């Protein structure tokens, strides 16, 4: 250890000098880069003439930030990181048993989610808890489910799908149209929407059987756009950009959540509140999520799941082992799409309104980034990533105090994409395989061993 930290302590003087040098250089570069963008601003004066407004103070702030940042990085952060890395290398490999929390993580997480609504209800009351159950709870769980569904296609089968939101849309519109036009209940339409989405998954699957990687990504992207454009332009059925409103709510096996005498509140003799419906929706989406997770975990151990993973690794080897790659790919698309459809019909029922607005490419991108960020194939990682990305967006909306700093016009959620991008870049640098980069083998002879993260799929594709 002493030998490790030696260079940085012995040469503190030269290090400061080096840091100063680099920081000055960075400051000069920053000045040159920003002098025209930040330092000078074009504006109109009273006579409608174009004038230059200098903003030297702002430019100075930029330059100082760059200088201080670079100095801190060279002088403190880099030596600290090398020392830590050296210490890590020097320390013997630790083989400690995973702690209680780590071993039972998924059980504890499910327990926490089940207890979440009652805790929130008791903390904030029926009205105050709506925000937490609806915006945070349900919204995040929808994305968890979507990402887990996409994980089957991208994470397990290795088929890069940029149009996943199309299946979400198919599910949502199936529920909206069939419930309004034919009066079917949610419980009939949920499986039906899943089947319809799976059917569209197969329709997408056929033409792209021979495609891989970038080409596949382009075709799936186009597929997503086609579905959206059809929804916009087929106005007789979908009412175009106006969307479909007045979608019936979900009932608890026939008991509606409203003020009627047969309503949930009356039957159970509770005071009328919209919170019950939200809590019910929360548990419903939680159940759907658990179903997705359960199916994914089971499928991975079945021949079809193993075939998906083998397909991701090597298609030619798969064929020479007698695996029918056509059906393998189609089932991956179909099952992934089916969960998208489930999530879509839930989404339609929860919103009571669907329009093509909700199914833009950005949604596909967000879902895909959740999968990549979480670590392809890892359910836990994806759930964490969904909480971070979707919950983070919702949190931004809550940050009213920022208005006091940046002025009343500042809307933090507009910076969402900027923060997304920064988070993605940071993640790819720090943990290129996602939050949970290890892949648990599905077969083992004597003991279960996790495979180190450094061997699992990197965030490509």
């Amino acid at each position, binding site marked *: 250890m002493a030998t490790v930290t030696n260079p940085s302590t012995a040469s503190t003087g030269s290090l400061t000098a080096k840091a100063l040098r680099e920081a000055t250089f960075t400051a000069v570069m920053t000045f040159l880069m920003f002098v025209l963008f930040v330092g000078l601003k074009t504006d109109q004066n009273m006579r409608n003439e174009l004038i230059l407004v200098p903003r030297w103070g702002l430019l100075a702030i930029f330059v100082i930030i760059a200088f201080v940042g670079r100095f801190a990085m060279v002088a403190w952060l880099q030596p600290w990181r090398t020392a830590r890395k050296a210490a890590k290398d020097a320390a013997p490999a630790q083989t400690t048993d995973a702690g209680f929390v780590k071993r039972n993580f998924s059980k504890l997480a499910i327990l926490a989610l089940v207890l979440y609504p009652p805790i929130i209800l008791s903390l904030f009351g029926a009205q105050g808890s709506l925000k937490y159950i609806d915006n945070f709870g349900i919204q995040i769980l929808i994305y968890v489910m979507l990402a887990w569904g996409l994980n089957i296609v991208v994470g397990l089968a290795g088929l890069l799908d940029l149009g996943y939101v199309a299946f979400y849309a198919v599910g949502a519109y199936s529920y909206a149209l069939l419930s309004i036009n034919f009066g079917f209940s949610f419980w009939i339409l949920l499986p039906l929407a899943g089947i319809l989405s799976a059917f569209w998954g197969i329709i997408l699957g056929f033409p792209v059987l021979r495609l891989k990687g970038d080409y596949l990504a382009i075709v799936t992207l186009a597929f997503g756009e086609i579905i959206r454009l059809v929804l916009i332009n087929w106005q007789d059925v979908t009412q175009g950009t106006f969307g479909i409103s007045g979608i019936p709510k979900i009932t608890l096996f026939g008991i509606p959540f409203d003020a009627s005498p047969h309503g949930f509140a009356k039957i159970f003799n509770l005071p009328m509140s919209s919170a019950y419906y939200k809590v019910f929706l929360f548990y419903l989406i939680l159940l759907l999520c658990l179903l997705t997770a359960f199916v994914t975990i089971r499928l991975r151990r079945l021949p079809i799941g193993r075939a998906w993973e083998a397909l991701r690794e090597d298609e030619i080897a798969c064929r020479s082992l007698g695996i*029918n790659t056509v059906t393998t790919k189609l089932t991956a698309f179909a099952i992934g799409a089916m969960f998208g459809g489930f999530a879509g019909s839930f989404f339609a029922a929860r919103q009571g309104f669907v329009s093509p607005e909700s199914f833009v490419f950005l949604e596909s991108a967000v879902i895909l980034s959740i999968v990549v960020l979480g670590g392809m194939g890892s359910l836990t990682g994806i759930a964490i990533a969904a909480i971070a990305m979707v919950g983070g967006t919702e949190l931004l909306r809550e940050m009213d105090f920022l208005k006091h700093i940046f002025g009343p016009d500042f809307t933090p959620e507009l910076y969402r994409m900027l923060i997304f991008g920064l988070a993605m870049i940071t993640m790819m640098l720090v943990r290129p395989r996602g939050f949970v980069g290890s892949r648990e083998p599905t077969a*083992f002879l004597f003991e279960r061993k996790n*495979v180190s993260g450094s061997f699992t799929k990197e965030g490509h594709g």
Partner: protein
Amino acid sequence: MTAETLLKVEGVETFYGNIRALAGVDVEVKKGEIVSLIGANGAGKSTLMMTICGSPQARTGKVIFEGQDITHMPTHEIARLRIAQSPEGRRIFPRMTVYENLQMGASLDNQKFFNEDVEKMFTLFPRLKERQFQRGGTLSGGEQQMLAIARALMARPKLLMLDEPSLGLAPLVSKQIFAAIKLLNEQQGLTVFLVEQNAFAALKLSHRAYVLVNGSITMSGSGSELLANPEVRAAYLEGGAH
């Protein structure tokens, strides 16, 4: 040997676009034999192997396995007839563990004989047992080749087709691989069709062999005959005594 014919290739022509890679090839493999196919780079060795497996399919001619015409069958169905292939470049599943790789090989029988067969593979290649929890991609070249062969054997094949098992391996390691092939043939009567650049090792091992030049078979005979043949010696053996 007067054993019955297992695989018969009759007048097969294979094209890549308009380019003819195989110009009427006839090959026969009998039960219990090791037959090797030697030839220079680009002679069409791997193409013949892939044609037998149905990708690409032969334009003319026939591939017959156990009396059944398999010329136009899809690859995975050919594999299900228990023609195990270890394709060129090994093609193991790099992110799956050794154990999972073996499991993939056993998918045909629904894992019925899995435990029994895995033990056999671990006896044949003890290195794989040591490495069973490791990811395929972290194995050395020789271990990957062992895994590729073991994975192919997990399907309990009637015919094992190996494409360049010695590719990129140290001489000692390829010797081990060839010894394993020989053992399998002698002990279990496994029929092997071997495509090899290392002509000396392949000929020494094989009962019979074919020489492929520019998409046509120019010579055939027993391994020792071809080893002694001056033309073969000049083209494939001299200047590189293995």
